[in-house]
């Protein structure tokens, strides 16, 4: 993972083409959610050792935000999905 990411739109690309935004697990709360929920969204990170979801922005490619599912200990990548597609799929559920 640290070297190459296979972008669902552009194919296999080097890390240099991406900008990493951070954990993709926290979801932006609704505007009316409690303060605590907003605090957790912005500041609290689960930070597990192992499988995580992370936003990678393909800035030098398709400029899409990708959700990379990977292991942060072994650096194995399990999947790369367009964030909007994932978001829409989540909304449909």
């Amino acid at each position, binding site marked *: 993972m640290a070297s190459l990411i296979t972008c669902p739109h552009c194919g296999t690309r080097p890390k240099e083409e991406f900008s990493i935004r951070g954990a993709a697990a926290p979801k932006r709360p609704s505007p009316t959610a409690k303060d605590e929920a907003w605090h957790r969204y912005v500041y609290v990170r689960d930070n597990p*050792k192992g499988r995580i979801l992370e936003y990678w922005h393909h800035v030098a490619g398709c400029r899409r935000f990708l959700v990379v599912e990977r292991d942060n200990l072994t650096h194995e990548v399990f999947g790369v999905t367009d964030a909007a597609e994932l978001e829409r799929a989540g909304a449909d559920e």
Partner: protein
Amino acid sequence: MRYSAYSIFKQALSGNRMWKPAWREPQPKPHYDVIIVGGGGHGLATAYYLAKEFGITNVAVLEKGYLGSGNVGRNTTIIRSNYLLEGNNPFYEFSLKLWEGLERDFNYNAMVSQRGMLNLFHSDGQRDAYARKGNGMRLHGVDAELLDREQVRRKAPYLNFDHARFPIMGALYQKRAGTVRHDAVAWGYGRGADARGVDLIQHCEVTGIRRENGLVVGVETTRGFIGCNKLALAAAGNTSTVGRMADLELPIESHVLQAFVSEGLKPVVDHVITYGAGHFYISQSDKGGLVFGAEIDFYSSYAQRGNLATVEHTMEEGVSLIPGLSRAKVLRSWGGVMDMSMDGSPIIDRTPIDNLYLNCGWCYGGFKATPASGFCFAHLIAKNETHHVSRFMRLDRFERGYTIDEAGRGPQPNLH
């Protein structure tokens, strides 16, 4: 066993056969007053000061690997106190003062070398930001000088003054900044703590935190249950993992930072230098290796290794800053796990659990903080009250809106 020139002389005459171990290898006792999780620099310093300054010696330091196997043995050895914000500046200055007296304090030569640090600036905006920082330092009595281009050139004539993409305009200079032999810090604190009765227990991984009635009663470890009155976490990159055992919600994300050493070279770089047009920083060890690094790899990682793109980027910045490096060779790269906090500043605080104490969030600046972190954490644990220089380093500052955002980059840990 006290170390001195005399002890070296005496031992040499007997073939160096009579040296005693630097520390014991004790079996864990069933119960301690204080257990510190993490036998790195901060954990060992905490134990040392608990024993020495606060008379608490029934202490165990639990380390899952060997002593000093974390970032204290894997950093670029820089010490400094050139911080901008009120939440940081006095704390790091306190740390620098402790460094200045440390070796005689713990009878171990950690080679504290106050060779001076140049923070280069390359634009008017950067100069203004450094001036603001330097004035803030001076207000607190910390040494700071603003050097112009020619003054920098006199100190470091080998920097790229003539063909730079981002010309050097000057530097913020802290004369008292410098380097320390990193391993020796862990060993010196460990030896000092051990001599005062602290049990340093290596190869003992904490696997659970046992609580009763809302209080910690001890820890489960790979070497069995060990009870304690107070539990202190100094687990650096593994803070979230250990914190989860006590259901702590933490503003921490673990990242990998690489560092590098060159082949041994005759001394050429006499200061610590940071590149203002990038993140590159460099110094030269007393053995001759150039020790340097740049930015983190940007993704969450618990693997102590980095990627090639970051390696290349580091070298690009290095050669851009010091053209003469081009033909020198890099010997080794390594990676450390950084407990990046959400504002780039650390946490030394109590937790929602009364007898559980937290020390984390050092990002990639933990080494220089080791003495003050240990001292303040020991103060907090022993007296249950915050040392005044660490009073801003609270866990609830994020909720309350009092972040200590030295870089001004907001709640994205990989930008700090």
